[in-house]
């Protein structure tokens, strides 16, 4: 295992440069699965996608397969999707409604709570009765933030809300509105040959790339983003970086200009919605979040859950080794929106950030290039750079976390990577919390 000392060679202390091995090396990736993915809160699904008892989805936490299901008691639980007899996958469907989960290999049956419920011929073939308590599927800690369901394998990790930290305050901008927010699924999944961190970083704060990478799409459907076409101008915006590595950009409009990329009828419906909703948000959450509510956001919740507000995509970057991921994409909407607007937002998201999205394809190839060039040993020794906006981070009254201007900035990248380095090297969550609080203050 690499130590803090090793990581000083890989990541400059301020996060401003990185050795490319962190996006390439198999050993570092193995350490990530153990130190980062097995200890962080990872997005599983949303309440709205498994509303009824027996509803389930299967997903991944890192590379661990998990089943997320709602029990007869209405409680959502998650557990490993791997039989404790010989390891086979217990549930092969992506979603559905079940009474139990039966392994295909020998017919062991697990309940909606993951407990071992039946073993065929148990009395006849086992000398002693099996210890069923020991043979239930390994449970995941499940906690929910305003309907968004997350899992954590680490029983010593802080609660989900503490892990969100300042991000909870920001999330409330669209999650703590009347009716709350929800996701439309099922997720669209795309395989890309790139390291997962490049995507998390891209969404956490790379506003800089939008005007150039996505120039073609912005030229066609630019709307409020038209300003940044071809990196001709810097858009007004703020970048936020929180204690546990989460961060985002917000590029604001005014109360009469609602920044989004919806078109036609959807844009009209969206503008009507915003016009009516902003005063509600201001009264409930105050002026800072009323302004954030009316902004395009690109953000990442550490480590691999990203989103865009105003385009309303919600993503998880599922790692598949150090050099490949699966992008999972849902649509983010407010529950009280009219159905026609929800459908319109889903269409905008799919048209821009789905599997044939007008913008999504541009990113995929960049991230593959970022990753695959490291096959060259000499190339891999050339450090990567995230020094943009260095020294501009600070605090502002009314906001709970560090922030930086403009949105063209890499403060959130650096913060993300420092959180990553802390998790890679810290022995336990006490150490992670101590080191991260120290970093958040300075």
């Amino acid at each position, binding site marked *: 295992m690499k130590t803090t000392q090793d990581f000083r060679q890989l990541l400059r202390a301020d996060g401003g440069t990185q050795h490319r091995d962190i996006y390439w090396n198999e050993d570092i990736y193995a350490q990530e699965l153990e130190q980062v993915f097995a200890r962080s809160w990872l997005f599983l699904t949303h309440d709205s996608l498994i509303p009824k008892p027996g509803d389930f989805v299967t997903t991944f936490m890192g590379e661990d397969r998990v089943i997320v299901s709602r029990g007869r008691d209405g409680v959502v639980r998650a557990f490993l999707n791997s039989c404790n007899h010989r390891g086979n996958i217990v549930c092969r469907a992506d979603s559905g409604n079940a009474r139990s989960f039966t392994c295909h290999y020998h017919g062991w049956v697990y309940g909606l709570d993951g407990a071992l419920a039946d073993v065929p011929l148990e009395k006849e073939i086992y000398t002693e009765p099996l210890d069923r308590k020991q043979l239930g599927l390994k449970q995941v800690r499940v906690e929910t933030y305003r309907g968004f369901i997350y899992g954590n394998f680490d029983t010593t990790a802080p609660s989900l809300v503490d892990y969100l930290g300042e991000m909870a305050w920001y999330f409330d901008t669209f999650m703590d509105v009347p009716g709350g927010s929800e996701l439309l699924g*099922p997720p669209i999944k795309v395989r890309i040959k790139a390291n997962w961190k490049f995507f998390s970083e891209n969404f956490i704060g790379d506003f800089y790339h939008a005007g150039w990478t996505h120039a*073609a799409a912005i030229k066609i459907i630019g709307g409020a983003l038209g300003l940044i076409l071809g990196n001709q101008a810097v858009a007004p915006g703020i970048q936020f970086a929180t204690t546990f590595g989460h961060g985002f950009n917000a590029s604001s409009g005014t109360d009469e200009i609602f920044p989004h990329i919806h078109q036609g009828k959807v844009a009209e419906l969206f503008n009507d919605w915003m016009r009516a909703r902003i005063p509600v948000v201001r009264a409930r959450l105050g002026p800072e979040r009323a302004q954030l509510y009316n902004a395009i956001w690109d953000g990442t919740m550490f480590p691999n859950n990203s989103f865009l507000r105003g385009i309303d995509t919600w993503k998880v970057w599922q790692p598949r080794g150090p050099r490949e991921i699966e992008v999972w994409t849902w649509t983010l909407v407010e529950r009280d929106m009219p159905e026609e607007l929800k459908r319109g937002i889903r269409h905008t998201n*799919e048209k821009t950030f789905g599997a044939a999205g007008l913008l999504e394809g541009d990113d995929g*190839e960049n991230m593959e290039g970022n990753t695959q060039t490291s096959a060259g040993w000499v190339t891999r020794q050339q450090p990567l750079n995230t020094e943009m906006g260095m020294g501009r981070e600070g605090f502002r009254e009314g906001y709970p976390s560090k922030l930086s201007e403009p949105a063209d900035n890499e403060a959130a990248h650096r913060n993300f990577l420092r959180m990553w380095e802390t998790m890679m090297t810290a022995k336990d969550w006490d150490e992670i919390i101590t080191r991260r609080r120290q970093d958040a203050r300075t």
Partner: protein
Amino acid sequence: MMTTVPGTVVPLETYYEIQIFLFREARLLDDEQFRDWLALLTDDIHYWLPIRENRFRKDRRPAPTPEESASVYNDDLADLTDRVARFETGFAWIEDPPARVRRVISNIEAETTAQADEFVVYSNIILYRNRRQDEEAWFVAARRDRLRRVDGAWRLARRHVVLDQHVILDENLSVFL
């Protein structure tokens, strides 16, 4: 024209015209003649490619509809025109240098509908994409089309693409199937 029972196999001459239409459409797309392709679509075109979940056979949920499913494409003519216009901006970096794309169309069946000028057409497509140095992708799909004769010319009015993948196994599906 004689009216027939909907679902009747079309006469040979009609079948021949439909086959030529589909082959020509595939060639225009292979050759990136996207404006000529758009001209083959009706004003009310609906082009739909839903994602396909792994569901148990006993799952009683209805099949996904365009309104209630996640889709890769759920496009009208304006959406499809946007995609073509993006391609033409000169800024679509991922299309430059261009990919090598080839479509093979087969298993064509054509049937009459209740409208004398509209036909249900089934076909299969294999699309091979080769780009950059060595990147290869294969997409195999069934298509359930509705073709319409407008002023004597054939036009595509509906396309439902049934893609035989769950996880999209290449970095994007930015090709018309």
